[in-house]
């Protein structure tokens, strides 16, 4: 049933699901386009320049112009490439990045949750799909048959799996407090108190690992231009490059949404301001994280690779374990 039409329109369930999926995908891709524009604008302002301002008013049509350019660019495949895997890799990255949105609940109203499906293993589903995204990067670099992409992809795979470990450990504290792995369940458990307060350590570790997982500054060793040209996507051009680009941004938005759901109470309104609908709060909170990402990029220089790996294994992993054991101890004693 589609209640939005004002009268009860009976449609088969799969039509409803397909329409919902298309609408959500459209929203997600539009969000990607405008967060990209926002990034370029904000970076511009932080560096005292105007940022894109030629295409449309305030540069608002820039994403459309970029998309048109990507569509019309020649699609090159290097002779040395393993053609099938070379073409498959951007797919894997993109589908893994988009698929996560199936389980993210954006808000809740009288009709129920605003999500495609609230699976009970929500957080596991998210981690599973983001891990699959790593295959896209490592296969892309390997199949290009070129040196820089190979170096970049092996490096970034090592980086991503190392930080993924600390990330999975950092959210265990939240699971102890919430007692469920369902994303909606975790939000409901925060009705009284957002988990950012009892889980401040886990929150900090999650944020740091999330930046590393999405390969953004200061952890963007994947595309360290000065040493690796463009990293794993050096050989890609046209829309195939665009798919990696979309996937990277979607991952950034995903980790912002997950941080909102796990630590900032999802769509719960702060200070009892329930007049403003939950979806607005969700977007505001997730937007805060996205802004923080852009801010980081404008502020911090890139880390050295050995320090990056040492930081992940020697500091973040033990810190996350300590955090979860402390949380468990408190819960065990106080109940």
């Amino acid at each position: 049933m589609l209640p939005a039409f004002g009268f009860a329109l009976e449609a088969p369930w799969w039509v409803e699901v397909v329409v919902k999926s298309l609408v959500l995908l459209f929203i997600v891709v539009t969000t990607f386009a405008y967060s990209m524009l926002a990034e370029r604008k904000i970076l511009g302002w932080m560096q005292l320049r105007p940022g894109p301002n030629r295409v449309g008013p305030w540069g608002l049509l820039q994403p459309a112009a970029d998309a048109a350019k990507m569509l019309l660019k020649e699609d090159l495949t290097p002779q040395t490439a393993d053609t099938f895997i070379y073409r498959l890799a951007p797919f894997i990255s993109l589908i893994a990045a988009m698929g996560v949105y199936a389980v993210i609940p954006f808000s809740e109203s009288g009709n129920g949750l605003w999500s495609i499906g609230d699976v009970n293993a929500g957080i596991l589903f998210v981690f599973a799909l983001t891990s699959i995204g790593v295959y896209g990067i490592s296969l892309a670099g390997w199949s290009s048959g070129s040196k820089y992409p190979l170096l970049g992809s092996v490096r970034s795979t090592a980086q991503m799996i190392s930080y993924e470990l600390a990330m999975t450990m950092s959210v265990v504290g939240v699971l102890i407090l919430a007692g469920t792995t369902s994303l909606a369940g975790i939000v409901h458990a925060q009705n009284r108190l957002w988990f950012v307060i009892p889980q401040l350590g886990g929150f900090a570790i999650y944020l740091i690992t999330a930046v590393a997982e999405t390969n953004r500054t200061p952890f963007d060793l994947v595309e360290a231009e000065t040493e690796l040209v463009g990293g794993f996507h050096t050989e890609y051009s046209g829309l195939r490059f665009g798919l990696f680009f979309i996937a990277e941004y979607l991952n950034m938005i995903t980790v912002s949404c997950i941080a909102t759901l796990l630590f900032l109470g999802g769509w719960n309104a702060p200070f009892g301001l329930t007049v403003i609908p939950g979806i607005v709060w969700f977007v505001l909170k997730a937007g805060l994280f996205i802004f923080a990402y852009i801010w980081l990029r404008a502020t911090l220089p890139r880390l050295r690779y050995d320090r990056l790996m040492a930081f992940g294994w020697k500091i973040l992993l033990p810190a996350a374990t300590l955090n979860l054991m402390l949380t468990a101890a408190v819960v065990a004693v106080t109940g």
Partner: protein
Amino acid sequence: MDPYVPVSVFLGVALVAALAFCTVPGLLAQRRPNPTKSEAYECGVEPTSSVGGRFPVRFYLIAMLFVIFDVEAASFYPWAVQMRALRVNGLLEMIVFVAVLGIGYAYVWRKGGFQWR
């Protein structure tokens, strides 16, 4: 309805969208390949050797360590969800588990497994 059904439908729609993203430029974009263009990029210099060379064994070590510690992380999840029911017993058992793990972790640290040189 099982929530995994709409999730699978969404994944299917995402797959079709990604396919569309990949086929449309093939119809629109020009294609004029030439031997220089389809060479692997090496800053304009002709590639001197093939890519299948030696590789630092460090990366292999990291991959193995990841498998070990990730399996361990996976075993934390069911325990964490049931923590309120397990109470102090669950905590004590987990302390033993983490202690055993800590010995392995300290060994790897001592042997320079996390040292990048």
